[in-house]
């Protein structure tokens, strides 16, 4: 089924935050910040700005009625910096005026004086100074100290991974207006409506019931609007409350890039030990996460890095440590994969380095160590329904890995200027919020007396197609046509206490809640039908309700009217909480994931060794969808995630200068894939598996896992570079930009 929003999208009729018809008298707001990444504020002079005609107000920390606090996991982040500035772009206050234009003019008139403090942008440096967001975490299995003696090869190294700008094409924004009695309506472009509601309540000193947050859809989120959509909504709400006027905020791209956090850069040390038969016996890793200036979601992201530090491999002896290091960068945040990809990059780097020093192919090591049923992850979950080997074997069989390798060798032997590289990238990604408490959702279904149905859930639509899947669930249970069902916005009055739409879990959690709601309603309708037909088995299909013997039939519309007349409730609000999962942080053991998603990709690249540029020839994937409930949507997620992952590993380079100022602060300096940078060929095969019960309709979550196929891009390029320059010692330092490729091609070091 095609995405239900597609028709409006192509006609330009879909309404995003900035397209909401504006109420007359709407004001616009714009945050301002100081030109430093670390400083002590001496004075904020807003006089000249305030006097500019068209400026309604300028708010500072002292104007906040409630707590000057927006931290989600840890209360360590003020809305407005009052005394100290901790990153370049940290808001100090908010300008409100009759147009964005006038606010930008006013911003130029604000003078902030401050004393400079030392700027730290490197996580290792921060760790040495004990600048930490939370105490370090450690996952352990087996006995690592003893295991080294059983290893024939022990290889050590370092891997650096840069961050990634979300670059949702719709920038951050919100629109708030006062309702009566001091309550507020807030339209927000957020993945987490409840976080917005809760934080506004804290900052404005209001009970949550006075704040209605509504989300229609996002023009891209990718994690960047999970936690970091909140502060803009709080600003609009603050101004709306103080001025009793509708207030809108829609960030300029350069403000968005400068002021928001990104995927976390990591720097990691690894040590890997293997036997002669290429079994990985021991793996030790220390991750230094660059968290930025405050916690945001960093502790949770750190945790997922640990959960995925061994990717799809079974390693009996593991010690994985992770430090969340506080630096003077914008607070880094969720981004598709949520720390998992960084954990996986390091184990892949370790395997590649081991392969290079042993003199085998990385895929020989990868294949020899894939997880299987009964294996235990370092966090204690024992694997059931493993598909790692299955997907590898299917991939090998379908795409003939040996032939690919052979062709690459022949090509490289007969070409000097162009070298090909390939990498195999298996993935294994756990589904569920790792914070067990967050794995719940609710759905509200109303059937109106004319038979039309409206659905609200906690899921936010951001292009991932969750609303389409939800519509499919309802239409299938009720046996009615899609035209009868409408998906409503995500609204905190209709659905309370939502978890953000994140962790690839939106369709599973909200879909399961919806399933419960629809089945409850269906059971009521069956009773109504039975009272008409007698006690026969009843089926719902094609807008008809009939007995299986085909003797009795009633249309959906007629049955609904009948139920209504019989005073049967045609509304249902259902709750779902994922069973089975649990996790004990004190022991770092448990069963945190409902299930895992698997898959294997083969990536091939051609590098121009004269210029250092490259082109991906193909990516061939065998992916474990379970039983995909929507291949149109799911294939789009695979292709999209893959390309985003390749972008992260290749051209997307975040650059801060030594002062902590973002240099890659616009689309002209931060490049994401365009249509010419996608692989020439992407083939996706569905692995035949029985999906798990905990996946909605046994259709596995698909949002984040495919991004990690992109990791192979780095190692494929490296393979080509090695073929041209076999003697050079190459670092692991993603992304592999054309600059780094050219430098490595001609590196003459030892």
């Amino acid at each position, binding site marked *: 089924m095609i995405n239900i929003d597609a028709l409006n999208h192509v006609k*330009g009729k879909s309404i995003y935050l*900035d397209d909401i018809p504006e109420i007359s008298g709407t004001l616009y707001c714009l945050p301002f910040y100081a030109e430093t990444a670390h400083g002590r504020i001496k004075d904020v002079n807003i006089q000249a700005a305030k006097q500019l005609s068209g400026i309604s107000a300028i708010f500072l920390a002292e104007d906040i009625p409630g707590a000057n606090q927006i931290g989600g996991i840890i209360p360590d982040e003020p809305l407005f910096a009052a005394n100290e500035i901790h990153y370049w772009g940290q808001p100090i206050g908010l300008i409100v005026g009759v147009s964005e234009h006038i606010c930008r003019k006013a911003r130029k008139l604000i003078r902030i004086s401050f004393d400079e403090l030392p700027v730290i942008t490197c996580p290792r440096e921060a760790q040495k100074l004990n600048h930490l967001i939370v105490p370090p975490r450690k996952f352990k299995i087996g006995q690592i100290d003893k295991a080294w003696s059983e290893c024939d090869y022990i290889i050590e190294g370092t891997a650096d991974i840069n961050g990634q700008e979300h670059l949702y094409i719709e920038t951050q924004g919100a629109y708030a207006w006062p309702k009566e009695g001091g309550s507020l309506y807030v339209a927000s472009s957020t993945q987490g409506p409840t976080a917005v509601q809760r934080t506004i309540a804290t900052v404005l000193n209001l009970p949550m019931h006075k704040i209605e947050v509504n989300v229609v859809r996002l023009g*891209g989120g990718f994690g960047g609007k999970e936690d970091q959509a909140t502060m803009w909504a709080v600003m609009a709400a603050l101004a709306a409350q103080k001025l009793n006027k509708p207030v809108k905020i829609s960030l*300029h791209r350069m403000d968005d890039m400068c002021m928001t956090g990104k995927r976390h850069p990591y720097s990691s040390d690894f040590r890997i030990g293997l036997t002669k038969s290429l079994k990985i016996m021991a793996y030790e890793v220390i991750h230094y996460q660059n968290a930025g200036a405050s916690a945001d979601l960093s502790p949770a992201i750190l945790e997922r890095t640990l959960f995925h530090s061994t990717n799809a491999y079974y390693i009996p002896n593991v010690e994985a440590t992770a430090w969340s290091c506080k630096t003077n960068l914008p607070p880094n945040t969720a981004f598709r994969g949520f720390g998992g990809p960084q954990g996986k990059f390091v184990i892949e780097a370790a395997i590649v380095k081991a392969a290079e020093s042993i003199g085998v192919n990385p895929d020989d090591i990868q294949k020899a160590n894939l997880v299987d049923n009964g294996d235990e992850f370092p966090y204690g979950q024992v694997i059931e329904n493993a598909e790692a080997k299955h997907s590898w074997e299917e991939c090998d069989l379908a795409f003939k890995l040996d032939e690919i390798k052979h062709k690459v060798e022949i090509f490289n032997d007969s070409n*000097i200027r162009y070298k090909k590289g390939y990498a195999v990238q298996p993935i294994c990604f756990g589904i569920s919020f790792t914070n067990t408490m967050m794995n719940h959702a609710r759905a509200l279904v109303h059937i109106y007396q004319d038979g039309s149905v409206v659905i609200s859930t906690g899921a936010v639509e951001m292009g991932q*197609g969750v609303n389409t899947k939800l519509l499919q669930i309802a239409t299938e249970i009720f046996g009615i046509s899609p035209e009868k069902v409408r998906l409503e916005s995500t609204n905190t009055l209709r659905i309370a206490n939502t978890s953000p739409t994140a962790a690839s879990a939106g369709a599973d959690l909200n879909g399961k809640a919806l399933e419960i709601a629809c089945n409850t309603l269906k059971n009521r309708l069956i009773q109504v039908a039975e009272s008409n037909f007698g006690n026969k088995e009843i089926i719902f299909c094609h807008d008809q309700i009939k007995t299986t013997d085909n003797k009795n039939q009633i249309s959906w519309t007629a049955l609904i009217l009948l139920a209504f007349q019989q005073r049967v409730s045609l509304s249902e609000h259902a709750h779902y909480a994922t069973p089975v999962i649990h996790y004990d942080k004190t022991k770092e053991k448990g069963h945190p994931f409902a299930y895992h998603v698997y898959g294997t990709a083969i990536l091939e690249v051609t590098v121009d060794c004269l*210029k250092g540029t490259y082109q991906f020839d193909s990516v061939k994937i065998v992916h474990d969808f379970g039983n995909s409930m929507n291949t149109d949507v799911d294939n789009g997620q695979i292709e999209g995630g893959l390309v985003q992952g390749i972008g992260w590993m290749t051209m997307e380079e975040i650059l801060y200068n030594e002062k902590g100022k973002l240099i890659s602060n616009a689309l002209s300096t931060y490049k994401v894939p365009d249509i010419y940078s996608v692989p020439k060929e*992407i083939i996706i095969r569905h692995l035949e598996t029985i999906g798990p019960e905990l996946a909605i309709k046994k259709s596995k979550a698909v949002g984040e896992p495919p991004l990690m196929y992109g990791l192979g891009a780095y190692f494929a390029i490296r393979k080509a570079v090695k073929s041209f320059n076999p003697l050079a010692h190459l670092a692991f330092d993603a992304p592999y930009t054309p600059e780094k490729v050219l430098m490595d091609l001609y590196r003459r070091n030892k």
Partner: protein
Amino acid sequence: MNIQFVLNDQMVITANNGAGTLLDFIRYDAQLKGTKIGCREGDCGACTVLSGTLCNNQVHYKSITSCLTPLANIHGKHIVTIEGLNISGVNKVQDAMVENSGTQCGFCTPGFVVSLCGFVLNEENPGQSSAISSIDGNICRCTGYKSIERAVQTIVNDLTAVDKTNRLEWLIKNKFIPEYFESIPFQLEKIEPLLSPAGNLAIAGGTDLYVKSHDELSDMTLNFLSGHSTCDDISIQTGECKLKATTTVSELMNNTIISDAIPGWYQYMKLVSSTPIRNIATVGGNLINASPIGDITITLLALNSKITLTDIAKNQRTIHLHDFYKGYKILDKISDEIIMEVSFQLPDLHTKFNFEKVSKRTYLDIASVNTAITVQNKDQEIVQLRCSMGGVGPIPLFLASTSNFLVGKKITAAILLEAEQILQTEITPISDARGQIEYKRLLAKQLFFSHFITLFPQYVKMEELI
């Protein structure tokens, strides 16, 4: 002086300042919200609209980024937003995007649809690669490029039946575009030319100035140069090519006489920005902007171009382009002078041209280093040579010493290795977002060699040079 244009099917007359952007007008004045704000620097394509110019009773459409277009530049044009492409149901382009799941979050989608409709309206010989070219300025972050490629294939297939003699009629009949397009020529005819205000700052396409100074510009009175451009900005006689300064990069790119003289011309020009930017960016703007990395400037330097400047009193002078640049953004130009014309001799049969550019992303990116060369050779001997290079100093650089050294020399690896040593003394790159010094020096070397490896494979091989 009011600005007048046709917006979709409506005649618009506005007293707004001509320096305001078309994007702001569309969203805030006309309240058409299908055109999105993504970056305001022409780099995402979410704000793409079509601009139709009346030329010999026909309207020629091109895609443009409305965020970088001053309102004055669209006087007399037909501006088409996504709303102006809607018919009852969906048009063929929209249908292909829907059916191939070419839309995810949907925010970039109107821009893609507009660009593709521009292709449908414009392209004489529609094929997959020219269709993909038309969306080279549209970014989809979700990123559904493969689905979009499939949609494009559907559109191209649908177009194979196009009636080339009655194109517009056919497109309307086959539900590619709405009916009202037929009436547009009559509407545009009625619009009188705009007299540009005598502003202090002269502005042509605006594709660089509006990136940095959109706020400041929109309050200013500007002297608009681009609005009057007609259909004949390029004239070529006896091998001398004369470009009006307001010639767009697209016009340059698509000129068949130049492409005949310079094989590969289209592909070189394709490395310059993106389709919607090339459609508005001008040759004169690229020169006057004095970016050390301007692709057109580097190309014109190698072609030994001359520029003609005119001041307010109409005094004219003509100088060599390589004498124009005196320091970082310092020009041999007095304040009221503007560039009127650029001229160069097209390469003859004995002269070869090559252009090289490397950037993080191959297309729609600013170069780390770019370089162009013209070489006149007699067999292995170099008779004349001009090499230029960008991104390696404060100005777009003509490599005078390197070029002089090579004249009269034979094309051999040993000579080129020696020349490269001289090249390294001529360049002074700095570290920035486009690369570190060491990289730029290495890249300069590689691209310099690439000229010869590409043009003279019979005389030099890569392995002799690296």
